[in-house]
């Protein structure tokens, strides 16, 4: 791997970058035991508040704390302006793409994407064809994963358009930092993110079925044992709306109702954090205990809005990802502001041949994979692991894409042996409704193991607060 890693805080020469100057000075003058005490305070507070997540594969209800690091990831104002522009452009495009493929299919007619990539995709929902969703918005909430590599240029690593999670950590991390270091916020101009829930609620109300003046919004969760349950409850509470499970809802005459202590009550917008497959046992998986029978029919009848829409997965699929820059040119006639990571599509024989020869240098991902599962990080893998993965690729090359192992930027992070550079990424949350909006910031995830590039919380990643400077 390259030795010239881009560090968020220090330039290659060891100088502190200007936007980190105040924080670095604070680190410098604060005694070690005071910092240790702050770190303990943070851990205690997170435990008490109960900001935990469940880990799949561990015994039911196992709750773990996502490690939190007190060194913020700081983004200078000018870089954020570019990111913001690029993110809005990208998400606007992906919504146009979704609307197109479920309706006119102009992109397929233009021959820019092989039709089977879209229509044959397991995430493409035929049930959604020819049906107007309110405002033409499909991905109301998008989490776009951004990394920084080489000399510090930003790349989009992936788009998450299904039920992206993590925004509660963005908000809680900020609350924690303001509690631990009020003086740092008092003396610097750090842009606020706390209004995210208000923005989300406004956004959701804006996509209610036409004619509803006072739309009732609810958050639909799979339940308390879901890994992101804390976040579902948190967002419902912050927005002041009901947190419902499938069992709390029923459908009558294509309208959706909640079971309340005062009888049935209508719901117009569901911010659903349940996967497509489980939403409605009558329309999708019949064995789903999490869904609401008849929900899809109510949706198609225009009596309830689902956010995100059903079938958005096709647009964040890794087999569509390589086409996104083309999509931006096609739908917006603009040049992409943010770069894609160069990607080999292993269904193409040239790409496959090259990658099989260079597995030890590449990151290989499953096209439909999510959460860091089913992926090979070549430089970190043993030869045995590489051989096992090679066999899987050869059996189904079309299920994989490969990318160069990016030298992800690092950010100083507290470790057992003191402050050390660890790789980070960034997930801003883009809201689409009547307008496209995002709060200045996002979730910075950090790979806590030395040298590791995997930042997923299920794989030993931690989080940091993300500061966007006002100037």
């Amino acid at each position: 791997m390259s030795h010239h890693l881009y560090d968020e805080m220090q330039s290659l020469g060891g100088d502190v970058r200007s936007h980190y100057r105040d924080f670095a000075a604070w680190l410098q003058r604060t005694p070690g035991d005071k910092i240790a005490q702050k770190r303990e305070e943070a851990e205690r507070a997170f435990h008490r508040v109960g900001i935990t997540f469940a880990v799949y594969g561990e015994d039911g209800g196992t709750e773990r704390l996502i490690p939190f690091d007190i060194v913020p990831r700081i983004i200078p104002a000018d870089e954020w302006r570019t990111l913001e522009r690029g993110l809005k452009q990208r998400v606007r495009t992906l919504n146009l793409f979704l609307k197109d493929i479920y309706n006119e299919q102009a992109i397929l007619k233009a021959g820019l994407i092989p039709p089977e990539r879209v229509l044959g995709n397991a995430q493409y929902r035929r049930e959604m064809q020819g049906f107007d969703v309110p405002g033409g918005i499909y991905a109301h909430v998008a989490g776009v994963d951004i990394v920084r590599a080489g000399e510090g240029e930003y790349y989009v690593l992936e788009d998450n358009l299904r039920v992206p999670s993590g925004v509660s950590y963005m908000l809680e991390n900020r609350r924690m930092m303001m509690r631990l270091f009020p003086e740092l916020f008092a003396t610097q101009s750090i842009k606020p993110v706390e209004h995210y829930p208000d923005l989300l609620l406004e956004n959701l109300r804006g996509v209610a079925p036409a004619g509803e003046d006072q739309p009732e919004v609810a958050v639909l969760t799979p339940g308390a044992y879901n890994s992101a349950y804390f976040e579902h409850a948190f967002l419902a509470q912050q927005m002041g709306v009901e947190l419902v499970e499938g069992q709390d809802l029923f459908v009558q005459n294509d309208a959706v109702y909640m079971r309340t202590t005062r009888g049935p009550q209508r719901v117009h917008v569901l911010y659903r954090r349940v996967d497509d497959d489980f939403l409605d046992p009558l329309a999708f998986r019949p064995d789903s205990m999490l869904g609401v029978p008849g929900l899809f029919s109510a949706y198609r009848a225009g009596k309830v809005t689902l956010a995100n829409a059903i079938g958005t997965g096709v647009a964040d699929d890794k087999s569509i990802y390589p086409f996104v820059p083309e999509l931006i040119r096609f739908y917006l006639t603009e040049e992409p502001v943010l770069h894609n990571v160069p990607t080999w599509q292993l269904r193409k024989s040239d790409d496959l041949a090259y990658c099989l020869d260079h597995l030890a240098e590449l990151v290989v991902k499953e096209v439909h994979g999510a959460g860091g599962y089913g992926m090979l990080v070549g430089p970190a893998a043993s030869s045995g692991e590489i051989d096992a993965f090679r066999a899987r690729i050869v059996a189904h090359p079309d299920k994989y894409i490969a990318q160069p192992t990016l030298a992800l930027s690092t950010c100083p992070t507290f470790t057992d042996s003191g402050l050390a550079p660890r790789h980070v990424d960034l997930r801003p949350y883009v809201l689409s409704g009547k307008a496209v909006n995002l709060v200045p910031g996002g979730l910075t995830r950090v790979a806590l193991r030395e040298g590791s590039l995997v930042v997923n919380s299920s794989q030993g990643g931690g989080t940091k607060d993300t500061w966007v400077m006002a100037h």
Partner: protein
Amino acid sequence: MLCRTANELYWMARHIERAENTARLLDVTYRMSLLPYEVVEPGLAWAQPWAVPLITSGLATAFYQRFPQLSAENVLRFMVLDAANSSSIYCCLRAARESARSVRGAITSEMYEDLNSSWLEMRRQDYDRIQTAGVSEFLDWVKMRSHLFRGVTFGTMLRDEAYHFIRLGTHIERADNTARILDVKYHTLLPSAADVGGAVDYYQWGALLRSLSGFESYRKIYSDVITPRRVAELLVLREDMPRSLHACLNLIHETLEVLCDESSKEIERAAGELHARLHYGKTDDIIKLGLHEYLMEFLDRISALGMEINRRFLVPTY
């Protein structure tokens, strides 16, 4: 409010209140066990003070399925720490915290944090730790955690439906538990018939009063020796005594008046009837019927009211 939410809030409150009252029940048992007593009929387990909390909670059968013999240690293990006894303090705090977790949007973050802290601390307890710190010390801790939770609830929560369902759960459970704790004395034997009205008898009534936080109030109100008649009056009929049956029914009736609409008038009426029996009841009549008999009848009525609440608000069928 969602029925599921109301259900979780109601049971969250009931479980916290039950944990507190189990601590009170064990506290009175512990105090009584320190007194001299004779096994009147050798071999009869119920004759021992540590059988009493099992009997009044209706848990004797469950206990003997889990433990071969009656002893202070086994009863404490069963009533405090046993993960298989759904009424143990351990299970009550776990259930309360799980309920809170599943409806955390409906309560304040301070309330959740408080319950979560209680649970995290409870999880660290084991028998040796409790013994080392002292049984009374531990039972006091349980009571304090319950007081704290009620205080946080009172001090932070919007007076909305959620608040009312929490209050309803607290007072339904408290009414039931106070009746059971009062009944302890009925099951606790004196060394001999001649001891009725004697020092041990006096001390037993005193222990019962203390466990219901009524000792000082008793002194203030009556300024006299402790008699069963006055204890009954204080903890059944006096509405200024916060753990009395009358005080509980005041709150239950008041809360149901807020929660019930036209379609649920019957629950409000049933609560009103039960309330009236306490409001207009006479100590003489209780003594004539027998306190134990009176309490048994009350437990049936409060349980019936609980089932109606369940059917109408918490797990409706429509």
